[in-house]
Each structure stands twice: as C-alpha cells, then as structure tokens.
C-alpha cells in the first residue's frame, strides 16, 4: 500500500495547483493567458459582471415608487439546480401547480421539531385556498448546463487545452452532477445535513472504482479549474459588512477564537502528532475551526493540497457535524445555558452552516439567530483565512523546503493567483453592497438569482471530478494510524472549550442583553 505522505503535496502533479516547476518559467503575462488560476479569475469575473449587470439593468428600469425588495435577477428562471423532492425524483425537475395544503400554511415557528404546537394548524381568516404555481427547475438546469459548458469550452480553447474533448465529455460530467443533486435533494437526506458535496464525491468514486473511467472523459476532469472558479464566485458573497453583525460579542467568538483554534490545531498536528502532510493538517484545521466544507475547499486550493486530502477532510467534517448537530443542543439543554450563549457555542463549533442552523433552531429563535450569525461571520473569515494560508504557504512552507531565501518574485510566482480574484470579488461586491444606492438589494439579488447557483454547480462538478480521479486504495492509507481523526478530535475539543468560555464571557457575562442581532 503506497504511503500518501512520502512526498510533499505541492510536488505532486495531482494536487490543487498546476503551476509548472521548471527553471525557465513563463512570464506573468504568459500565465495570464494559459494558467487555470488566472482563467478561473477571468471566467468568474465574466460571470459576475454579466450577473450583476443583469440585476443593475433590471433595477434601473424599475418605476420609482417600487420598494427595494422588488429586485430579482432576470437570470433566475434560467439558472437553477434540481429542486428538493419528497415522493418522486421527477419533482426535482418539474412540479405541477397545486393548492397549498392547510397544514403547510401553518408556518408558526415552534421551538421543537416534534412539538405539538408546530403541527397544529393556524387559524386563518383567508377562506380561499392558495394556489402554488407550477415549478420548472429543469429550465434552470438546462440553462446552467449551456452557460457553464459554453464558457468552459471557450476557456479551454483559449488556454490551448483540449476544448473539443472537453465539450464532448461535459454532458456526462454534468449528468453525474445532476444525479448528485437529485440524490442530495431528497427531503429526508437534505434534512439531515448530507450536503451535495458528499454525494458528488460518492458518485464520482463509484463510477471510477466500480466501472472505471474511459479515456474520452479525461479532458473534462478539471477539478482545480472548477473549484477555483467557484471560489472566486464565492468571493462575491463574502461581504465584509457581515463581520460586525454581532458587534463585540461576535468579534470575541468568531474573530478571536477561530484563528486561535486554527493555528493551535495546525501546530499541534505538526509538533505533537507529527502529521507528515502539512497540507492535510492545514485543511483539517481550517475546516474544523472555520466553517466546514467551504473552508476546506478554499484552504485546500490555497495550500495546494492533494484531492485525497480534501476528500478526507470533508468526510471527517461531515461525519462529526452530523453527530454534533444532534448532541450539542442536548448538552446545552442539560447544562441549562442561556440560549444566546448556547447559540454562540453552536455557531462557533459545528462545522457546517446548515447544521448550525438546525441545531440553533432546536433551541429556539434567539439561539438560531445568534448561532447563524456567528457562523456567518466565520463564513466571511474564509477570505482572510485563504489569503493568509496562501501567503504562509508560498513564503514559509515552500520556501523552507528549498532551504534557501525566497524573494518577493518567487513568492509572487508561487502564490495561487485565484486567491487574488477571491479577495478582489469580496472587496468589489462589499463596496457595491455598502456604497451603491440599492447596492445591498442588487448584490443580494445577484447571488440569490444567479452566482450562488453557478457556484454550487462548479463545486458539484469539482467533487464529481475528484471522485472520478480518485481510487479507494489511494484514500485508505490516509487513515493509517488514525492521525487525521485524532487531529480533528483534539482540535474540535479545544474549539469546544475555548468557544464555550468566550461565548459565556461575551453573551453570558459582559453582554447578556442585546446579544440578539
């Protein structure tokens, strides 16, 4: 069985970086025309520009008397993903018009999912039944297929890659992505935080390990290109104004504890556990301390981790998330903690954003608001984390490997350029969100109606690609010795302790009132 740790991850041709390692290096201008890092920025920049202009065009054409909330992206009907379904997978693509059931209209918020209050119908004055129009998600799925297939084929052509091969294979990859979304969209699956990333990875793994991957599919397996483009799109959702959403208590829980846990876990992994792969250590530390899958994706790309390392980190995170989502609210209830303290503890410790919301809602509305807002601040910290990790990696880790001083030029050459696009997207859309008239509504309409969906598709295609490119036997050695799991457990234990102390100090002692955002 091969040892996955035998070589440093950044030497591998199969890591999340594709920059050449040659004595005679191409110029930055040349790389801008060919490298996937730069093309991730160009593609995402093009998508962001089109999507924002579409919303801006719509907003500028509104009658003056309309309220802010009237803005919807005109692209929304044409960009979508399979819908959540319960009875038949066909509901993921088409749902006929129907009359709203009485029990569905009972939308009073209940503190517990099995509470009798929640299931009791609410008295309504409206005697006439409400009609829900037909939903046609298949149109959005086709739109996303055409847009992404077309854009990436053109990009492959301009990069001098195998564009025709990409175009031929793209429908198959996209269909596997559709299958992943349909599997993840079943209402029972969805309600237990089993994200599409997991199913996309499994679908790819099953195809490659049970059936093998044909050669003609190879040109479309562009894991890094999809991930980096999706991350630049994600940058537009990282709005800096959200960092102060909870004021000083939020800063304490999210800004102070998160970096301490991240750095402590990484140092523990290097010095105590002596994890042979620094990049695996970093990805696990980040996904555990920041916010799960999205942080793992961003950090893995920033530190050029292997695809197997990203898969392992995400598997660990999702497994522990499901357990913590159920157990932590019980512990909070048993301890009798104030709901705001409990919410902050949940938001700072459970990895996945959706799981934080489920656990918070179990404790009530205030806990949900605090938990979701703490997690939102951590989400926004992804940008800072990815940037710092990229700088650390290029200037310290990779420089240390060569045992020689590294100049700024070398650091610039090694720096993963897509991170610049990610940060730039965050800064530009934070600026537009805060400064432009109706900017907040337009930016939100943009990501709700288009870029969020495209980002989801790109991550989904990336995870299918990772699965297609991975053999089970390549994953197994990573579990040897149980060090990754030990790292996660130790780091999460520290996270639980520090976040509890900070949450209690901030939301229980210093700011017991006004903790709710």
């Amino acid at each position, binding site marked *: 069985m091969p040892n996955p740790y035998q070589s440093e991850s950044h030497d591998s041709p199969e890591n999340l970086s594709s920059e050449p390692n040659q004595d005679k290096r191409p110029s930055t201008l040349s790389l801008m025309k060919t490298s996937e890092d730069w093309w991730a920025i160009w593609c995402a920049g093009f998508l962001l520009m089109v999507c924002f202009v579409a919303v801006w065009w719509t907003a500028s054409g509104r009658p003056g008397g309309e309220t802010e909330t009237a803005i919807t992206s005109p692209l929304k009907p044409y960009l979508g993903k399979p819908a959540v379904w*319960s009875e038949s997978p066909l509901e993921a693509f088409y749902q006929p018009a129907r009359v709203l059931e009485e029990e569905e209209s009972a939308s009073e918020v209940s503190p517990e999912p099995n509470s009798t209050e929640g299931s009791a119908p609410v008295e309504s004055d409206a005697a006439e039944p409400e009609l829900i129009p037909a939903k046609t998600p298949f149109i959005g799925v086709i739109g996303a297929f055409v847009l992404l297939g077309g854009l990436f084929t053109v990009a492959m052509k301009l990069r001098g890659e195998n564009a025709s091969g990409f175009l031929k294979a793209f429908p198959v990859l996209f269909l596997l992505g559709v299958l992943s979304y349909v599997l993840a969209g*079943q*209402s029972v699956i969805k309600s237990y935080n089993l994200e599409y990333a997991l199913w996309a990875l499994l679908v790819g793994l099953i195809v490659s390990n*049970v059936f093998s991957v044909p050669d003609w599919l190879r040109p479309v397996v562009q894991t890094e290109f999809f991930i980096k483009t999706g991350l630049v799109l994600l940058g537009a*959702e990282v709005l800096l104004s959200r960092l102060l959403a909870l004021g000083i208590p939020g800063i304490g829980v999210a800004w102070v504890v998160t970096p301490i846990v991240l750095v402590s876990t990484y140092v523990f992994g290097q010095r105590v556990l002596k994890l042979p792969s620094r990049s695996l250590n970093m990805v696990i530390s980040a996904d555990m301390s920041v916010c799960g899958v999205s942080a793992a994706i961003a950090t893995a790309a920033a530190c050029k981790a292997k695809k197997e390392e990203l898969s392992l980190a995400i598997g660990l995170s999702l497994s522990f998330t499901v357990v913590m989502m159920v157990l932590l609210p019980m512990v909070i209830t048993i301890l009798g903690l104030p709901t705001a303290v409990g919410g902050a503890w949940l938001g700072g410790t459970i990895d996945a954003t*959706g799981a934080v919301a489920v656990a918070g809602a179990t404790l009530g509305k205030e806990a949900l608001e605090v938990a*979701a807002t703490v997690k939102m601040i951590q989400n926004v910290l992804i940008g800072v984390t990815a940037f710092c990790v990229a700088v650390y990696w290029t200037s310290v880790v990779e420089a240390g490997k060569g045992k020689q001083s590294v100049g700024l030029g070398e650091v610039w050459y090694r720096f993963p350029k897509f991170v610049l696009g990610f940060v730039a997207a965050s800064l530009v859309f934070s600026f537009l969100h805060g400064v432009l008239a109706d900017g907040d509504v337009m930016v939100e309409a943009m990501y709700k109606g288009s870029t969020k969906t495209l980002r989801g598709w790109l991550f989904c295609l990336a995870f299918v690609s990772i699965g297609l490119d991975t053999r089970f036997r390549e994953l197994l050695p990573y579990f040897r010795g149980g060090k990754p799991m030990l790292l996660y457990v130790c780091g999460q234990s520290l996270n639980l302790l520090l976040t509890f102390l900070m949450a209690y100090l901030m939301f229980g002692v210093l700011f017991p009132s006004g903790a709710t955002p």
Partner: protein
Amino acid sequence: MKFTMKSPVKYTGRLLTLAVVVVLVWGVLLPSLSRSETIRNRNRWLDANGVDPAAMFYTDLPCLTADD
C-alpha cells in the same frame, strides 16, 4: 491519474446492483419516510424557521436572507 476502458459487459452486474440499490433507497425507502408524520413535521419546522440543513454558506440560509 490513470484512466482505463474496460469491457462494459464485465460491469453489467455491478451496474444493475447499484441501480437496484438506488431505486430501492431513493425510490421506495426515502419517499415512504418522507410521508411519515415525523419527517413532515420536521420539514415544516425547518421551513418555518428558514433553515436549509444542507446550507454550505450563509447565503444558502433563508433565515439570514429575509426575502428568500
């Protein structure tokens, strides 16, 4: 990265097995669970609280984005 093309006939059994498992789980088991009152209550509760349990980022959470 090594890609190989093997005989599709060899894998027909595996494909059928997988198809049967997927159809049984996603076509029969999960839909029947969805019809149970416990799951329906849970889904209504999640909707009412604006919670998407599979949210990857805060922008995926309806409770943080009011007009979703």
